[in-house]
């Protein structure tokens, strides 16, 4: 039991923080309830997928700066193809969009492995490339999305469990369907091994290059889910990337995934997404200048990491 707590201390702390923040929100705004949580979850959906994508790449020891641009590409792909599609073909379009995401991730990963240029530089260049691709697909916001997809993120489950937002179920379902099997498999082990020490992993027989490409492909898949969810929420495709890059880095770091790789999971970062969104909501409810929110978010990110860094320093000295 103590070992379990020790292993998940960071996640438990984050969950406690989230619960406390929810309580404070309720105090500030007594009407905050089911519908508030529902809209909070819906707003957090694309952020959660972007964060999941970033987390996988960071765990394998890289970083993907093109997350937001890939989301834009998949978002507009779905919106353009669904404009004149029926219900049946929109299912096909959904799968096609996911495939596009995986393909983009694979391209990113292969370029990182083949060119031997640092991850951050390659994905910085690919940020421009994918941004351009999104603009080529759709020049101005437009397109449409199938009704059943829009219905999938709005409202609750219905019946006795109507208080559970559909967006939350969708988020948990998609992320766990992709991540849990991977984490339990050989690939998951390889990803963590590559992230913690690439040379050691290589000498132990891990196909390091293939593992890294696979991690980037998984990130691409999450980006596709993020782009789709963005289109599902807004109903149109938006070719200009949103603020997801910075937000995902912030949530990943706050969620206990160390830059450099090999440590952390996806649960922490997802809780961190909710914490960051909730803080934004709270500040809005308190009628604080929305611009102050940016300051608070940046400050939280820096302070949390600083405390983490000082704690590890202390631990090492002991």
């Amino acid at each position, binding site marked *: 039991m103590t070992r379990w707590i020790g292993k998940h201390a960071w996640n438990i702390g984050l969950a406690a923080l989230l619960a406390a923040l929810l309580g404070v929100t309720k105090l500030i705004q007594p009407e905050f309830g089911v519908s508030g949580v529902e809209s909070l979850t819906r707003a957090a959906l694309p952020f959660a997928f972007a964060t999941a994508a970033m987390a996988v790449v960071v765990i394998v020891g890289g*970083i993907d700066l093109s997350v937001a641009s890939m989301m834009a590409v998949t978002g507009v792909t779905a919106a353009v193809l669904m404009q004149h599609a029926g219900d049946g073909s929109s299912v096909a379009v959904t799968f096609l969009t996911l495939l596009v995401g995986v393909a983009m991730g694979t391209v990113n990963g292969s*370029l990182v492995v083949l*060119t*031997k*240029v*640092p991850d*951050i*530089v*390659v994905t*910085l*260049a*690919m*940020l*421009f*490339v994918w*941004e*351009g*691709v*999104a*603009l*080529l*697909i759709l*020049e101005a916001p437009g397109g449409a999305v199938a009704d059943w997809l829009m219905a999938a993120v709005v409202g609750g489950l219905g019946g006795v469990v109507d208080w559970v937002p559909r967006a939350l179920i969708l988020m948990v379902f998609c992320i766990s369907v992709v991540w849990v099997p991977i984490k339990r498999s050989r690939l998951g082990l390889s990803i963590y091994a590559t992230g913690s020490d690439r040379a050691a992993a290589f000498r132990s027989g891990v196909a390091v290059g293939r593992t890294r490409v696979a991690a980037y492909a998984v990130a691409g898949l999450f980006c596709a889910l993020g782009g789709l969810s963005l289109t599902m929420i807004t109903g149109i495709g938006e*070719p200009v990337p949103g603020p997801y890059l*910075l937000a995902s*880095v*912030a949530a990943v*770091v706050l969620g206990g995934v160390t*830059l*450099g790789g090999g440590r952390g999971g996806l649960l922490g970062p997802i809780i961190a997404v909710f914490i960051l969104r909730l803080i934004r909501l709270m500040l809005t409810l308190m009628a604080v*200048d929305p*611009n*102050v*929110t*940016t*300051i*608070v*978010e*940046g*400050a939280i*990110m*820096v302070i949390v*990491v*600083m405390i983490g*860094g*000082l704690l590890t*320093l202390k631990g090492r000295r002991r």
Partner: protein
Amino acid sequence: MNGRVEKPRLTAAAGQLVRDHPLIPLVALLFMLSGVLELLRPGIINPFWLGNTVKFATPLAMLAACQVLTMLTAGIDLSAGAVATVSAFVVATVTPLFGVPAGVGVALGAALVVGLLNGFGVGVARVHPLIMTLGTGLVATGCLQVYQRFVIATGTEIPHFLEWLGTGRSFGIPNGLFLFVPFSILVLAGLRFTGFGRLLFAFGSNEHASRLSGARCWQVYLALYALSALIAGVTGLLYIGMIRAPSLSLANPLLLPSVAAAVIGGTSIFGGRGSYAGAVIGALILTVLGTMLTLLQMPEGARRVLFGLIILTVTALHARFTEQN
């Protein structure tokens, strides 16, 4: 048969050349791009165009100095764009209230505060530079947005000497060079001949070893990030004189290209290797590239794709040729 033997030898020779004189291929690339430009629109290469290119490359090259200096220690300064914007906006809004010296002073002071924060985070609290500078950049942008609401009624005024520096020309040469030439000489000489410059290279090569040799880690980082922010602040002053329209995201679009310029110029993001001269050429290459892509009259999307692909190709070729083993 012959060709098969020749090829690796040729690559090796080229690699040797690039390793010994990393600037030669970059300058060649710059001339090649200008040649393509001349082919696309004959007669475009004239003194006026040259002056314009240099003028627009100057702020980019100065911001690239922030990236080169920090990358030498395996860091990065992602707050440089925000800091330049803050300093530009502050000087434009403080000047009508308190005059030019106060405006410049407050602007650079604000930049210095952000830099000291970065240095504290990286040097003392040991936060990853990427996270630290990203965070302070966010905070600085937020502070600027709040500050803007207090000065919204005062109007803006850009000091005359900044306009002279940013847009004027003397004898056909853009005045920005009067700032940039001494600046780049300072950076180049500083990196090569001063102890601080050597410390940056030492930290990037092996931080542990340099600490064991008696270098005081946190002081170097504090000074480095403060210096980087000051450079970004001065860049903001130059840039506002050039653009003459203060806004809340003025210099932000320069941030990623400044990283690209440093990387194209052969600075390793892992530290210990790099040169500022390369970054200056990198900034020129990016500027010429921008002109070329505009001239091609492609859709905006295709231009961005090409821009990204060219950055990637140049860095990949550079990495291939200079591979250590």
